[in-house]
């Protein structure tokens, strides 16, 4: 009975696929629920508004404002620099170099850079800093994180710029526009929602990364006031707090994790909303 067997196959694989999907969605929920359940009790307003009190970063009092602000500084700075370098690169790749050897070499390099573990960027930054005689600082952290974010941002932008329809560019050229005018006024405009998504994607990756900032940004209880001050970051706050044997401090690590999670989630949601808002003029 070949038909029965085929039916059975069909059903078996259907169940398999559904089960796999459930595992994926379930893991997301499990992570969210577990972290929030553990962290929520220790979460308080002072966690968000104060710097640590009572002992070097293992303090039981105060909050982790130092790490929140530090993370925003480091990831914000890195994303800004990565954007400033990344957008021209992406535009060059997709609108000028296109399918040339240089372009494919650059794309390959970016793909490799994307897969380089972030600790390598941390080590690289550390070596450079020693060479320059710098100590762990906000600037160092920003530099290391920029390296981490660049390939993510450029490749994501490259993909969205590449799919801008030729007919839009033709329309611009046919009116006597130069290549630069076409790229800046038409191509970037059409790709704007995708470009924003690329920025937020890179920012999200950056703010959550611990390894690249471990040696480069360092850690501190205070909020950095200059680029040359060390800066605390949320992933490291979680790492250090969880590493202590003191239960109260460990509890605060969970709370820090919740804050980081909320930050990343709000970026993800903001990215969706912004994309929708800026899609208004996009031609489909």
């Amino acid at each position, binding site marked *: 009975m070949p038909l029965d067997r085929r039916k059975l196959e069909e059903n078996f694989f259907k169940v398999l696929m559904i089960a796999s999907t459930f595992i994926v969605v379930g893991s997301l929920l499990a992570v969210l629920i577990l972290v929030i359940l553990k962290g929520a009790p220790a979460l308080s307003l002072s966690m968000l508004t104060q710097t640590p009190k009572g002992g070097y970063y293992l303090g039981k009092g105060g909050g982790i404002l130092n790490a929140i602000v530090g993370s925003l500084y480091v990831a914000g700075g890195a994303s800004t620099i990565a954007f400033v370098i990344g957008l021209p690169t992406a535009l060059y790749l997709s609108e000028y170099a296109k399918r040339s050897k240089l372009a494919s070499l650059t794309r390959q390099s970016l793909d490799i850079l994307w897969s380089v573990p972030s600790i390598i960027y941390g080590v690289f930054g550390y070596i450079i800093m020693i060479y320059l005689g710098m100590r762990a600082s906000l600037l160092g952290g920003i530099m290391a994180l920029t390296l981490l974010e660049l390939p993510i941002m450029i490749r994501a932008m490259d993909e969205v710029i590449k799919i801008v329809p030729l007919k839009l560019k033709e329309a611009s050229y046919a*009116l*006597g526009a130069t290549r630069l005018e076409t790229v800046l006024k038409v191509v970037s405009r059409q790709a704007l929602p995708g470009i924003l998504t690329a920025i937020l994607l890179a920012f999200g990756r950056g703010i959550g990364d611990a390894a690249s900032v471990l040696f480069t940004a360092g850690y501190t209880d205070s909020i950095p006031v200059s680029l040359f001050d060390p800066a605390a970051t949320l992933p490291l706050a979680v790492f250090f707090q969880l590493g202590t044997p003191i239960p109260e401090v460990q509890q605060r690590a969970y709370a820090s994790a919740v804050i980081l999670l909320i930050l990343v989630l709000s970026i993800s949601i903001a990215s969706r909303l912004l994309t929708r808002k800026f899609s208004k*003029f996009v*031609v489909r």
Partner: protein
Amino acid sequence: MNDMLKPRVIIQKLNVFYEGRQVLKDVTVNIPENQITAIIGPSGCGKTTLLKSLNRLVDLVDGVRFSGKVLVDGANIFDNGIDITEIRKRMGLISQTPNPLPMSIYDNVAYGPRIHGTKDREKLNQIVKQCLQAAGLWDEVMNRLGEPASKLSIGQQQRLCLARALAVKPEVLLCDEPTSALDPVSAEHIERQLATLKKDYTIVFVTHILRQAKRIADYVIFLYLGEVIEQGKAETFFTKPQDPRTQAYIEGKSITWTEVEKTEIDEAHTDKIS
């Protein structure tokens, strides 16, 4: 051939190759001033390439090569050192499918004047209004100029593209089957606008729809496999064609072409606008 008509664009021995494949062969034609010239012929015969050679949009194709001359006011637009943006400004293009830019209705029309240096708001307002009126769209959009152009219907979008082309004050309007994506009513609208515009512009109109060419053309160029088979004033072209291939094409008969092309000719006859 067209001794009565003053030529606006003179094309001499134009050859165009894509990656070594010859698309246009020794095309020599005159485009008469202030007339509607229809370029007809089956799909793939080089109509669009000929049209896009006139504003050098063929340059965008990878691996394109050309020889010959396209003279506008005595200057060959294929000369090195010619300002391509200036050529394109003088040769407005309306594409096969409407291609509004990702911006508002107003900004679509103002795009051209802006890149060519018009910054004054008053002046831009005036241009936008005039051009939308000339394209027969003003009344429909005057109260929503800030809305995305992509919100307009396809027919409105095509008239917007016409307005956008007019905004840079071109001398020639190149229309690449501008009604092929439109419903009959919108198509008729475009045809009517073009008929009124010909007193101020030289119009080149690519179409594979014979009835349409008969309706609007003053002058006809028949292209087949990249070659000009016949050209002449519309009356003579349609009533007394010289070349047997023209005659066959006009009558929808197949003599030399393959099955595929014949189907296209049949399609051309089941013209949407009757």
